[in-house]
């Protein structure tokens, strides 16, 4: 931090991070991400011509040349979009490759003509932070000031024109003018950052912090602030890293640190980060498996007309077509969750020694009843209200039984007038059965025709 050049680079990276983050949030929310990439390539012929014009690497002439070329590029994109049927992405690609090709032609001309001092031009391709001067710092701060002032003054207008072009047209906002100002500012930001990160990586600085912020933010102001903060953080992180390792380039490290911030937030963000989502997915899967098990237990008991109330491993194996070990671990899970109790019985003829039988506890019974009730109510609802055939409803009910809430179930029940049998003639456990944990006492009705 004591070295003069170190201070310049760190300060420059932070300034660049803030201004690129701020303007980048508009770039991302208006789907202009590849526009930045195109602009940064399109300035190349301008840089070459500026260099030839001044006869040396002169910051001002390069800046003027780059600005003119960037402006021309923007005009070409606008022209192609307006006057032809060419899609926006293709016109970006056309301008990018055409301008870049002209730029490379000029650069190779310059190299072959053997002009001295042309080495500085290479730095615009990949950036050369160590060559950053006070002049560059001034340009970076001017860029930040301009962007900040523009966003501060036009915050509302930009918001409206960005999200509701029709409405902004109806209240006569100068949407076109704002858009061109925005494009010009993007171009200026890109040009001012070229010395630090180079042509290829500028668009990363525009896009990555803003994309990261868009994962987190709820409101637009917060989104802007977050993007600035993330841009500054990655600028600081990148320049710091580049001084830690010797001889590492600053530009790519700035980009890499903002990418790591992005990945960090993608995986660990509070509400729907990937880790949280994965955990949720796991627990939901587990719940559904348990519910299916309880339902199977209910069906076994139903087949035995609820007497006796014990379930053997063998019965469950037959019912679910599972192996002994799987059912055993399922049973252990149920016992662990206090939905069932185990009873070891003495040897008998058909049972193997020490075989576990389980009896559902009142909680387990209630849970099982509720799932079966959801399933059968939904089947009945589909046949009666949605006119499904009775043999088509099972798959659908298999899925919905796990997500129906208490409220919805009541509604369906009211709609169907408290039914007792489902389309297949099976009993629908009533609310009383569920509540009291008693065994349904209504006699088995046998298949009845609905409708």
């Amino acid at each position, binding site marked *: 931090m004591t070295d003069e050049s170190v201070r310049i680079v760190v300060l420059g990276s932070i300034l660049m991070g803030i201004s690129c983050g701020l303007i980048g949030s508009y770039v*991302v929310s208006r*789907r*202009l*991400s*590849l526009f*930045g*990439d195109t602009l940064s390539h399109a300035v190349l012929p301008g840089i070459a*011509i500026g260099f*030839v014009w001044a006869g040396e690497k002169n910051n001002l002439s390069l800046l003027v040349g780059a600005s003119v070329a960037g402006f021309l590029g923007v005009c070409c994109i606008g022209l192609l979009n307006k*006057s*032809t*049927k*060419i*899609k926006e*992405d*293709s016109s*970006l*690609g*056309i301008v*990018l*490759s*055409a301008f*870049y*090709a*002209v730029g*490379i*032609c*000029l650069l*190779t*001309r*310059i190299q*072959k*003509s053997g*002009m001295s001092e042309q080495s500085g031009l*290479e730095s615009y*391709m*990949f950036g050369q932070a160590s060559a950053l001067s006070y002049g560059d710092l001034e340009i970076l701060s001017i860029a930040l000031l301009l962007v900040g002032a523009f966003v501060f003054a036009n915050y509302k207008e930009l918001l409206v024109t960005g999200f509701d072009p029709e409405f902004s047209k109806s209240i006569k906002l100068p949407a076109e003018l704002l858009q061109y100002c925005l494009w010009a500012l993007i171009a200026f930001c890109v040009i001012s950052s070229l010395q630090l990160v180079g042509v*290829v*990586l500028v*668009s*990363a600085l*525009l*896009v*990555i912090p*803003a*994309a990261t912020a*868009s*994962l987190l933010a709820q409101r637009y102001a917060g989104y802007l602030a977050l993007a600035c903060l993330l841009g500054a953080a990655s600028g600081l992180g990148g320049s710091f890293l580049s001084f830690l*390792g010797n*001889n*590492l*380039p600053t*530009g*790519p*490290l700035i*980009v*890499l640190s903002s*990418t790591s911030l*992005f990945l960090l937030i*993608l995986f660990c963000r509070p509400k729907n980060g990937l880790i949280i989502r994965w955990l949720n997915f796991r627990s939901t899967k587990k719940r559904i498996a348990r519910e299916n098990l309880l339902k199977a237990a209910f069906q076994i008991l139903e087949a035995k007309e609820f007497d006796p109330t014990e379930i053997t491993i063998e019965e469950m194996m037959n019912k679910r077509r599972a192996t002994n070990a799987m059912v055993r671990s399922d049973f252990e899970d149920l016992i662990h969750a206090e939905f069932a109790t185990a009873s070891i019985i003495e040897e008998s003829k058909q049972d193997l020694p020490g075989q576990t039988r389980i009896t559902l506890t009142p909680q387990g019974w209630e849970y099982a009843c509720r799932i079966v009730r959801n399933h059968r109510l939904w089947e009945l609802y589909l046949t009666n209200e949605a006119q499904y055939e009775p043999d088509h409803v099972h798959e659908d009910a298999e899925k919905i039984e796990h997500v129906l809430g208490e409220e919805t179930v009541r509604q369906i029940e009211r709609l169907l007038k408290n039914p007792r049998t489902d389309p297949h003639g099976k009993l629908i456990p009533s609310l009383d059965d569920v509540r009291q944990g008693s065994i349904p006492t209504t006699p088995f009705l046998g298949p009845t025709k609905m409708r």
Partner: protein
Amino acid sequence: MNLFPEFSMEASFIEPWSSASQVRWSLEVIVMGTLVSWSCGLIGSFIVVRRMALMGDAISHGILPGLVIAFLLGGSFSVAPMLLGACIAGLACSFCIEWLRHHTTIRQDAAMALVFTSFFALGVTLINLQGGHLDIDAGCILYGEIGLTPLAPEMQVLGLELGNRAIWTMGVVTAIVSMVVIFFYKQLLLASFDPTLAQSSGWPIRKIQMAIMLLLALTTVASLEAVGVILVVAMLIFPCVTASFFCVRLSSILIFTFPLGLLYSIGGFHLAQWLDCSIAAAMAVAATCVFIVAFLFGTQDGCLLRFLKNSRGSASAQ
């Protein structure tokens, strides 16, 4: 200095064809350029139709870490591992983009810019971490130098001299791309224009799109060594949009690619002879010039035609 050297017929048109060795060099460069623009033009038409024109740009930057890692693991510049590494990196790049697009709120354009710049930055950093040991010049990949094509080693099969290896590689890739386009034209067409319909008629739409991406990665990687990123991006986009000024059907656009490719490489080659600059860039400039001509005089929606129509329309209105 003067940017434009004086035009001389002799230097730009006669000299490259003056002696046997010169003719051979010029022919190899032109054949290479033509092959690149054919294969890129064919696959590029489907990319442009899907509104992913800059995907080529993204993939061609994204393969850099693959090249570096392949070099570090293999320890040499032999072609097979490099090609494999680049292909894997290119596919990883397009996979990441698709994943971000489908599983987060990030839009496609942002996902593209995010992924390929990150990959590129990773590649540049890896190169720099190696210090002086690694001889990959990131700039070389960006510019490419088609003029070096004739320097590629000769290929020998069963003792037969077959000729330049770079051209053979590119030729095989071009053949693969054209075969796929010819045999699976219907599938590619529907998958690009109406993915929903294709899906509803039970086609494996994801697989078809992955196949397009695979072909794109293959073409990009194969051409990159010779011609660099600019020419790849230009050749992916220009043939299709230029042809669309003259024809409407995709099949005729695809056929139009072939004469355009020839025009680009021959025109660009002579332009480079005149200006004494990078040949690949000059080919892209030639493509730009052809595009501008098409833009002005195209029979479909060209500027001149529209101007005439407008003035006739306003004249009859009066």
